[in-house]
């Protein structure tokens, strides 16, 4: 390749301001910045209890240039349903309603409302920034916490033995029009998928793997690097699923060892050789399954 593509693929306007309260290196804050760049200001954001309840800033401040509705932990999808309905009644169907929840608010306590909204095919975008634990309350396990990861409720001598819940598979089973995974290490892919989601009517679900330096026990300058390792090791495939059937793999990495991803994070410090081999095996197996679904 001997030419440089100078098309600006990341929209310039900023709808997330400095002065927000995220920790340094927070993947969730970068994710919001990209999401709003993609969606623009004709957007309303619903935030249930999670780190983002804090990041967005205390009354009377707001870190976002779009309206925010802060709501109870388990209600993002139901509030979004109601908000969208009211906007439709007012002839404002062009507004993008985005529910923005953590993994706890998505996989666990908000799961029922999410499943209900997905089954009804409500016309909004549900985003889960997935940092694989309850970070707001001080790093407790969620059903998104991966096998073997340390959290305060899965201490090293009593670690999590169950795998991470397959939220993508579950949402795909609801046959919603659009489902995607994105990573802050791949901003062009990220922006494209959010823009695509905005253009589709019906329920959209986007999962963001969202590194959290204090929760994952990583240095705060490693979040992009770790995000990339997750994709390259095939732990976190970048994909799209339309109507629960049409699978697209957006990137087919050669597949580095999961060890590179795991060793970069203090939360996996106590994994044995056997554990790593088991995780590698699981990742390989799931990748093969995914490949079959794509073809």
């Amino acid at each position: 390749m001997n030419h440089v593509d100078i098309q600006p693929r990341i929209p310039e306007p900023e709808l997330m301001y400095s002065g927000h309260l995220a920790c340094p290196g927070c993947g969730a804050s970068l994710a919001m910045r990209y999401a709003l760049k993609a969606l623009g200001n004709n957007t309303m954001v619903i935030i249930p209890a999670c780190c983002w309840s804090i990041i967005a800033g205390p009354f009377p401040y707001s870190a976002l240039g779009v309206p925010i509705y802060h709501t109870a932990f388990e209600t993002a999808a139901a509030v979004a349903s109601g908000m969208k309905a009211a906007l439709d009644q007012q002839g404002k169907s062009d507004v993008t309603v985005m529910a923005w929840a953590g993994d706890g608010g998505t996989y666990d306590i908000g799961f029922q409302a999410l499943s209900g909204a997905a089954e009804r095919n409500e016309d909004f975008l549900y985003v889960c920034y997935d940092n694989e634990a309850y970070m707001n309350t001080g790093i407790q396990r969620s059903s998104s916490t991966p096998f073997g990861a340390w959290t305060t409720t899965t201490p090293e001598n009593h670690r999590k033995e169950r795998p991470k819940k397959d939220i993508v598979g579950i949402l795909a089973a609801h046959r919603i029009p659009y489902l995607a995974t994105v990573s802050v290490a791949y901003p062009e892919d990220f922006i494209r998928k959010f823009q695509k989601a905005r253009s589709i009517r019906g329920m959209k679900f986007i999962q963001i793997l969202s590194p959290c330096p204090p929760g994952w026990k990583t240095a705060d300058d490693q979040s992009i690097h770790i995000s990339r390792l997750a994709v390259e090791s095939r732990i976190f495939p970048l994909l799209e699923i339309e109507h629960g059937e049409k699978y697209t793999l957006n990137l087919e990495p050669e597949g580095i060892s999961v060890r590179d991803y795991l060793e970069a994070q203090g939360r996996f410090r106590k994994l044995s050789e056997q554990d790593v081999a088991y995780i590698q095996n699981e990742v390989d197996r799931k990748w093969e399954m995914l490949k079959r679904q794509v073809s």
Partner: protein
Amino acid sequence: MKKVMMGNHAVSYGARLSRVDVIAAYPITPQTQIVEELSELCADGKLDAKFIKVESEHSAMASCMGASAAGGRAFTATSSQGLALMHELLHFSSGGRLPIVMANVNRALGPGWNIWTEQTDSLAQRDTGWLQFYCENNQEVLDTVIMSYKIAEQLSLPVMLVLDAFILSHTYEIVDIPEQEAIDGYLPPYKPEIKMDVDNPHAFGALVTPDHYYEIRYKLQETMDRAPEVARKAGEEYGKLVGRPYDIVEPYMLDDADVVIVAAGTLVSNSRAVINEYREKGIKVGLLKLRMFRPFPTKRVRELLAGKKKIAVIDRNISFGATGIFYQELKAALYGQNNGAGSPDIFGFIIGLGGRDVTLEDIAEIVDYTLEKEKNEEDIIWMGLKR
């Protein structure tokens, strides 16, 4: 136009006349016909509203919150277990100053499963910041839905109206349906001062430090303090419109009464009938009907009950470990009036829990007990208890 309808359909007609924008509800006995009728009205295009068939009462209230925050007129209806499930969001919706209106069909809570009438479900939500109105008949049910929006939207607070399971919800009565035009004049479209708006972005419900929270709560209480007058006026204005005025508390043969019954819901009708019988015998019994329970109409209750000697409060509810809830509230309102001099003796009767029939004879027994006893000796007088 007059129509014979069950209480549940009176709720639906009230919501329709209020031109609600968004309805989110989940079925529960004995509320189901409210939901069924409204979803039919929406499907037939007779009501231009979005009906969200949510997967729980919790999501029903959450959807109403989202709709209301975006400037829509939101409605839901529930009962008992469903109301209890919503509890967290009752605080959230009032704290968010969202004028949602909800009908609650008074039903007992399990276990064991009991679908019959009792007031504990709604009264247990008294501290959530919702206004509460109790209805006596199906006409009042329909009218109260409409008045509720009038009141809620002036105060930016949610309103719950309550009707008794089966005794109203499933009983057919003649109900006068007001003209849509008249109601449109009474209840203009909802135009909130602030709402979720992409052209004027704000953060609603953000983290509040102790520096501000206290004052925000003070303002909620300040609004509650204004609610009785706003509700009284709303009832008066409605009366001028349709010929049926409503007040927040309504006296019946009260002025010269030696014994005053205080009750809410359909127990009021029973009491009226008994009072008529006693009056024929020359015994001076009167009644104070509590329409509004939250905020508690303390000022009006004090005025109307000033100088009364004996009051019989009828509670179809209980606060376990304490007493009947209306009894508690009434005692609190009247305590220490006139420096305690001549304050009335208040008798607290619990009756009809879990829908056990309350007959006219039962009410007569309550009156006789109160007439006979020199002083009240018990905090709970159990009526009809099989010991």
